[in-house]
């Protein structure tokens, strides 16, 4: 049924009194509001969100609808809150009888209870909160009258598992509210049709509206007095110049690629801020209170700049931002373009942005990214099929809501774009895993999670388990985080740090959080207690947050740029560096592998310039060191960047070409994958999402530390005794695509076809020298390291003066 929604006169009047004109794409959203699935692609500042809501407001204007009408889903809690504020204004000014509320992890329990009993007309929420809602027994009643669901920033959600979970949830909602219309709002993307196919119910079509993209942005590289350092990612060298830019603009957003970098940069900025400009910091690990304060100050126009991470990538309305600064190479042109859109939040005005390369090589990458952005060349990676761990969780959520029929659930799942191709066998595997654990050893017959009833429906064996399932809903895999608060009664909550970081602290250590230096006092009931310590130099809090690898398109552009005879647009220091590289060694090429070897600091080094992106370079490091170990070269460790891998060891590599035989590398991958840290990390995520590991338990008992053990042990045990288990298969598949990124290794082998150039240098070459300063070094376990560990143990014994005591001896048994 094609339905058309006209704009009620009250709306026309309201627009007119404000002197606003409705954008063509907003009008079009109204015209086509009857479509079962509709996607709007518009640049930031294009009034996307209002365009998404106009049909709902128009349909609700007469006050006839009872109960929930529209669900709005955004990737960020803050966005849900912000939109509620912005939407309430026109609704109140026009006197519309519409109730609007938000519901996120931050909403109070009493409000959540009330919302279930008496839902508002428009509910703003996140994928996780929505997944929790469909797990309630009363979900059919809550969602019965639902007409529309608006998914905001769908381009961001669709990239990961949160999007997959949301689409599965949509499949369920469709059943509870037949005829539900789906609307997606997206920033500029490389493949609108692929995104639209994820939103629509498979195999139905999705209409796409593309708004006028507006004028091209004004982007350039920031020029600094001091050259960028050889390695590193913080951009601290540019603090003065960044501060100058902040002074010259009204409001500046300063983006960083990781939370830790944002913290360090903010600290440095603060130390250099002689004029006391009001500057704030915002990232996902800060406490709700801290973030809310910064957001409020920003909306009120009280801040001149805000240091932030991806947590501000998405459309919160910050008012008058007139400059975006990106610290560190953007790694991905699509994300750069979307970020830049944050500046000049007015339609049809060009956005202004500055790139600050964090190191010498990033100068080259920034140059390439600028060219790509100007050429409108967006880089996207096609998304794989829907992940099965998310499906397992969805089955548990479905079971929480009440008994279900497996055939009905299967057809519901097949109606989700990402899962359209799933086979019955795959689905049955997931169901069996959720019900019994899915082990070859059928050990849990007595303690099954799901039981099949005589009437053929599945239900939870123990209804109380729904509590634990609900506590573990979601697909966001942050490392385990511990809350940080000020010591003393009612101490202020500051944010959170990784558990591993907290474990490395001893009382008296200092670290940065929310831009302030604090002193670690104690760990009490899983909370890190600190005291203020402004005078001390901080150790740095480490946050998870995978670094995104440089995209394949961008890497190729960099390789092409390196072949140019000269780079007049680059600053002198970087030009000289590149010319020197060409003089003493070679420039890396798209179709060849450049290997440089040299001795340095008592170790033999080999640097492989293969430009496959950080994850693939990391994988290459693991595969190459494995082969070097077999060849008796005693590799000790390696470090990988987006562009190269540097390996060091006790012996010299004299013939690198055989290392790159594709079959050998692939065989190496098979053997290596199982016993690998990357797999263990992926396993942890997959196992938590699928419900093999439960991170949150009701009334977590305060047991001794020895009661908990690492998921690595589970991985090792499962790999040894049940290697074909579903969770291992899913882990492997996801690792290959994500952290292992073997596709990029294959792609590199394909483009270089075994053409290897060896340069034996007498000292580190200009490109390799920068690698020597990189952190994140990965040790390689092997004969070389075992030898060094024995030496280290002997040294400790001697140094402690205990070597002579008791003299335990090594004996053969």
């Amino acid at each position, binding site marked *: 049924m094609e339905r058309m929604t006209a704009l009620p006169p009250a709306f026309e009047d309201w627009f007119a009194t404000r002197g606003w004109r409705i954008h063509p794409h907003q009008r079009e959203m109204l015209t086509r509001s009857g479509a079962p699935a509709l996607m709007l692609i518009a640049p930031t500042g294009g009034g996307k969100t209002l365009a998404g809501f106009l049909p709902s407001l128009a349909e609700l204007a007469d006050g006839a609808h009872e109960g929930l009408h529209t669900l709005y889903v955004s990737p960020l809690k803050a966005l849900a809150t912000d939109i509620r504020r912005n939407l309430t204004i026109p609704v109140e000014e026009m006197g519309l009888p519409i109730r609007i509320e938000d519901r996120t992890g931050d909403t109070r329990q009493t409000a959540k209870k009330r919302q279930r009993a008496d839902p508002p007309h428009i509910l703003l929420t996140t994928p996780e909160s929505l997944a929790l809602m469909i797990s309630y027994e009363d979900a059919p009643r809550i969602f019965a009258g639902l007409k529309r669901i608006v998914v905001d920033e769908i381009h961001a959600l669709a990239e990961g598992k949160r999007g997959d979970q949301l689409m599965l949830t949509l499949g369920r909602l469709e059943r509870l509210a037949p005829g539900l219309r789906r609307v997606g709002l997206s920033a500029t993307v490389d493949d609108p049709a692929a995104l639209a196919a994820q939103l629509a119910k498979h195999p139905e079509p999705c209409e796409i509206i593309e708004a006028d993209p507006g004028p091209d942005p004004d982007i350039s590289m920031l020029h600094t007095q001091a050259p960028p350092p050889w390695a590193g990612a913080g951009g601290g060298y540019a603090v003065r110049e960044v501060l100058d830019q902040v002074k010259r603009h009204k409001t500046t957003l300063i983006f960083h690629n990781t939370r830790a970098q944002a913290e360090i940069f903010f600290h440095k900025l603060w130390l250099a801020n002689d004029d006391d400009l009001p500057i704030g910091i915002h990232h996902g690990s800060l406490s709700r209170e801290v973030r809310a304060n910064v957001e409020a100050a920003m909306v009120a126009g009280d801040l001149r700049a805000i240091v932030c991470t991806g947590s501000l990538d998405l459309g919160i309305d910050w008012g008058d931002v007139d400059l975006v600064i990106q610290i560190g190479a953007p790694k991905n042109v699509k994300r750069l373009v979307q970020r830049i859109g944050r500046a000049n939040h007015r339609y049809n005005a060009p956005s202004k942005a500055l790139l600050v390369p964090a190191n010498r090589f990033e100068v080259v990458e920034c140059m390439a990214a600028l060219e790509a952005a100007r050429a409108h060349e967006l880089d996207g990676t096609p998304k794989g099929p829907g992940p099965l761990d998310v499906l397992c969780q969805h089955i548990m959520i479905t079971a929480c809501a009440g008994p279900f029929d497996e055939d009905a659930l299967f057809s519901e799942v097949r109606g989700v774009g990402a899962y359209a191709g799933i086979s019955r066998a795959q689905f049955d595997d997931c169901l069996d895993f959720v019900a019994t654990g899915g082990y070859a*050893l059928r*050990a849990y017959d007595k303690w099954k999670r799901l039981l099949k009833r005589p009437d053929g429906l599945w239900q939870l064996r123990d209804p109380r388990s729904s509590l634990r399932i609900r506590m573990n809903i979601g697909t966001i895999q942050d490392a385990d985080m511990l809350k940080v608060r000020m010591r003393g009664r009612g101490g202020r909550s500051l944010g959170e740090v990784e558990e591993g970081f907290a474990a490395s602290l001893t009382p008296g250590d200092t670290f940065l959080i929310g831009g302030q230096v604090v002193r670690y006092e104690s760990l009490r009931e899983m909370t890190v207690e600190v005291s203020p310590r402004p005078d001390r130099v901080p150790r740095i809090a480490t946050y998870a947050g995978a670094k995104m690898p440089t995209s394949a398109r961008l890497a190729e552009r960099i390789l092409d740029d390196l072949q140019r005879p000269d780079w007049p647009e680059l600053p002198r220091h970087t030009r000289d560096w590149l010319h020197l590289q060409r003089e003493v060694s070679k420039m890396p090429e798209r179709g060849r592998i450049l290997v440089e070897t040299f001795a340095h600091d008592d170790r033999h080094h080999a640097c492989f310039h293969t430009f496959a992106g950080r994850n693939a370079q990391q994988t290459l490091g693991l595969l190459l060191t494995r082969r070097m170990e077999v060849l008796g070269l005693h590799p000790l460790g390696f470090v990988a960047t987006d562009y190269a891998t540097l390996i060091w060891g006790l012996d010299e590599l004299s013939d690198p070409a055989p290392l790159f035989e594709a079959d050998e590398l692939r065989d190496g991958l098979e053997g290596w994958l199982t016993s690998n840290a990357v797999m263990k990390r992926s396993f942890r995520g997959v196992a938590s999402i699928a419900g093999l*590991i*439960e991170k949150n338990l009701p009334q977590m008992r305060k047991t001794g530390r020895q009661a908990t*053990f690492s998921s690595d042990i589970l991985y090792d*045990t499962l790999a040894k005794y*049940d290697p074909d288990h579903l969770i291992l298969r899913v882990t492997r598949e996801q690792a290959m695509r994500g952290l292992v990124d073997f596709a990029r290794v294959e792609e590199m082998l394909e483009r270089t076809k075994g053409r290897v150039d060896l340069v034996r240098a007498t000292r580190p070459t200009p490109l390799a020298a920068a690698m020597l300063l990189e952190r994140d070094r990965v040790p390689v376990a092997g004969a070389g390291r075992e030898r060094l560990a024995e030496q280290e143990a002997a040294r400790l014994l001697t140094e402690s003066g205990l070597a002579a005591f008791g003299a335990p001896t*090594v004996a053969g*048994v």
Partner: protein
Amino acid sequence: MNGLDIPFRGETLCALGSGALHWPARDLLIVSDLHLGKSERIARRQGAMLPPYETRATLERLAADLDATGAGSVLCLGDSFDDLDAAAGLCAQDRARLVSLIEARGWHWVEGNHDPGPAGLPGEHHAELKIGPLTFRHIAAPGARGELSGHYHPKLGLQGRGTTPCLLFDTDRMILPAYGAYTGGMPATAPELRALIGSPAFAVLTGTKPLLVPYPARGGAGRGRKRF
């Protein structure tokens, strides 16, 4: 297999890389904190269904140590089962394997806080046990001398080698690492362990080869040079 001979109270005890301790003079293999049946207990009590293979993994390791040492008797130093019902919950295969290990040799069960009474398997049950100059009990008693215990699951990291379970000993006592597959650990430098360990003291790190290191001095824990 490599072992590390440790002179202790006039006896020689050999620490194996697996975390077991061999006392050749008494033909005895000592292991602690096996936590057999842990996954079944977790499924029964909490609902999570962990890979149910930890008992098999632990028993395979134990069988390999018995083969290598040829020890004629075994002493389990408490928390051999994750709780008293866990022994009954073992699958038939695991149970048969355990019984065959027990029946082939002398077997002593010292009780622990997880398994405070007999678990319904062959072998002798003891609250604690004295053999020659050595006393075996699950939880270390402050001030005891010549005592071997378990309970704490000590672990220790060495720069560039990661953190592994370890045996701790000084002149008066030994604290064994947890031998079971699904066991976590407590840092060897935790206050509970510091309170028990005197000076001088050592740790033997488990691994392919047992590695002897000094017990970290207060304050200087693990802050070595960083270089790989």
